[in-house]
């Protein structure tokens, strides 16, 4: 079995298993703590709170005007590389084929972007990631709250992005090895996912919702 076959065969399957069961367990472990009954008289109805909670899921992506002056740079960089990665992962032709094969579906209408655009977006994404990394290290408060999880997650993402760009641009080395490196680093991401901060992909909307919902019940600011 070649390294490429291993990376997209047994290793991928193992990584997917860890990912799926790990994510489910981590979500369950939180939900099993239970939701506390509230006794205080609500200021706003449950319907309104549900509405505000739902709205908060989206609106929290856009900073309040009171904060934007201090946070704009970090947000542009942060959201920027997230958007870049989603664009590459969901609209890059090789990835679309990968997803369809993985899930055993054929979706002819799934749109793709031209390779040159995907490459440009990938490079821009790496630049933004570099900016985020340098900022994490240079900005004193950020450095203080950063830990192994932050740097390890970034390292995996760099491995994925750089090997991907390398494979597409035909950099030095055998294509199979570069592609295998790309898939192996993706597998590592799947394996690490449930243990670290990548879980924010699953937590973001419930957390925002709960914040908006509970604040709305009090009439508090969201």
């Amino acid at each position, binding site marked *: 079995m070649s390294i490429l076959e291993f990376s997209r065969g047994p290793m991928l399957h193992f990584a997917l298993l860890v990912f799926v069961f790990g994510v489910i367990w981590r979500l369950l472990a939180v939900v099993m703590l239970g939701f506390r009954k509230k*006794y205080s008289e609500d200021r706003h109805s449950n319907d309104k709170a549900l509405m505000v909670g739902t709205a908060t899921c989206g609106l929290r992506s856009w900073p309040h005007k009171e904060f934007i002056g*201090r946070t704009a740079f970090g947000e542009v960089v942060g959201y920027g590389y997230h958007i870049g990665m989603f664009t590459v992962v969901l609209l890059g032709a090789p990835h679309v084929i990968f997803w369809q094969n993985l899930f055993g579906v054929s979706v002819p209408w799934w749109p793709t972007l031209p390779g040159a655009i995907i490459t440009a977006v990938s490079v821009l994404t790496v630049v933004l990631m570099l900016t985020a990394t340098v900022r994490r290290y240079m900005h004193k408060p950020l450095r203080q709250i950063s830990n192994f999880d932050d740097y390890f997650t970034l390292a995996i993402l760099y491995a994925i992005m750089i090997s991907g760009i390398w494979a597409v641009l035909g950099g030095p080395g055998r294509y199979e090895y570069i592609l295998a490196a790309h898939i192996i680093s993706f597998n590592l991401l799947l394996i690490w996912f*449930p*243990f670290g901060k990548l879980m924010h992909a699953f937590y973001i909307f419930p957390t925002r919702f709960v914040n908006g919902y509970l604040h709305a019940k009090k009439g*508090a600011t969201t």
Partner: protein
Amino acid sequence: MSTTATQAFAGAGAAEDNRTAEQRVEGAMSAFAKSFGATVAWNMESCIHCGMCADACHFYIATEEAKYIPIWKAEMFKRAFRRESGAFAPFFKILGLKKKVTLDDLEEWQELLFDSCNLCGRCSLICPMGLEVAELIEIGRRGMYEAGLAPKELAERAALQAETGVPEAVEKPYAELLKEIGEKHGVDIALDKAKADIMVCAPRNDLNRNPSSVAAMVKVLNKLGADYTFRSDAIVAENYGYYAGSSGLQKTIAKRVVDQAKKIGASLVLVPECGHAYYSLRWQAAELMGETLPFKVRHVTEYLAEQVEAGKLKLNKVDGLPTAFHDPCQIVRKGGVTEAPRVLMSELGVNLKEVFNHAGFSFCCAGGGGMNDIERTRPLRLKAQEIKLREVDDTGAKRFLTTCSDCRVAFDDAGEHFNWDKKTESLVELVADNIKES
């Protein structure tokens, strides 16, 4: 940290604490663990370490010191959660990714949890993940209390208030003070009526420092013909258990007010101009009791705004003096009373000049969360207050109003320090002084 330093900070009898360090840490973690369900766990699991909460915190903005990042203040408890009870606790333990929290760690965190946080909640509005950062800090305080590490100033007041109903050693009972205020200001104060529709409380700070505010509230209630009473056994609604981080004491203190309100059959408990009294009674008392309260809890400005809107209270227009208003965080941002003070100011014809960060986004007075009571916090408090005073000055306001006695204490102190040209005034006093005679 040395034993001396511990004793300087410690409350809850830490100096005489015979427990081992491990037992004290265990106490902290156990109290912490009891305080959360799924929603709090979500908060602890969701942080992406973006550091954005720093940009909401006046202490960080004023000092740019990394230790003041709000989420960092909850770090010990986040770490303990991941290591001891998170979904993959054994994984973090075995790989040593999360170190065990020690008493030394907790001692180091005392300053961050108590001396540099007002529990104002501004950080909860900036978090892109939607984390309730202030709640994590509040829960962290509970852990610290159980480890015997709450500041003496707060823990002793909380214990005293739980025992006697009064959070300070007093020469005269508060009931006597109330009577004197009534006599001095020429208002009849209803005290200890056996039955009343409304039970009213007063802030300790106003009884001692701003008695005219207490008289103002009474004057308006009398004018409205309200069926109200103060109760000697529960005159103050503020709750030092909330500040100190003791759920037990907080519950005992809240229960005193709740029991009195039940006893007289009140349908409403009116909380005076006191931020944390409002928040702890309005949003936490029922949760601590584990029951729905048989009465409503309203801040005095909510009540007065309702009277204005119902046409029962008419006010004269005041002068056109440019006026800034400070939104107390426990009442407005966290408590939801945003419109009521503005309804009153509108009725008064106040020439309101909003500060840039107003309503739910207002900067805290920097004295809340018990910091007014901890003298050593003053230098830090003043740095943060400078931001707020500058904001108020930027509006061109000549008058400065608020609806919280603790905020007034904080601003009075800052005003004196900076030779500020404005005095912080009570909105309720302005209302009382401008009741339209029908």
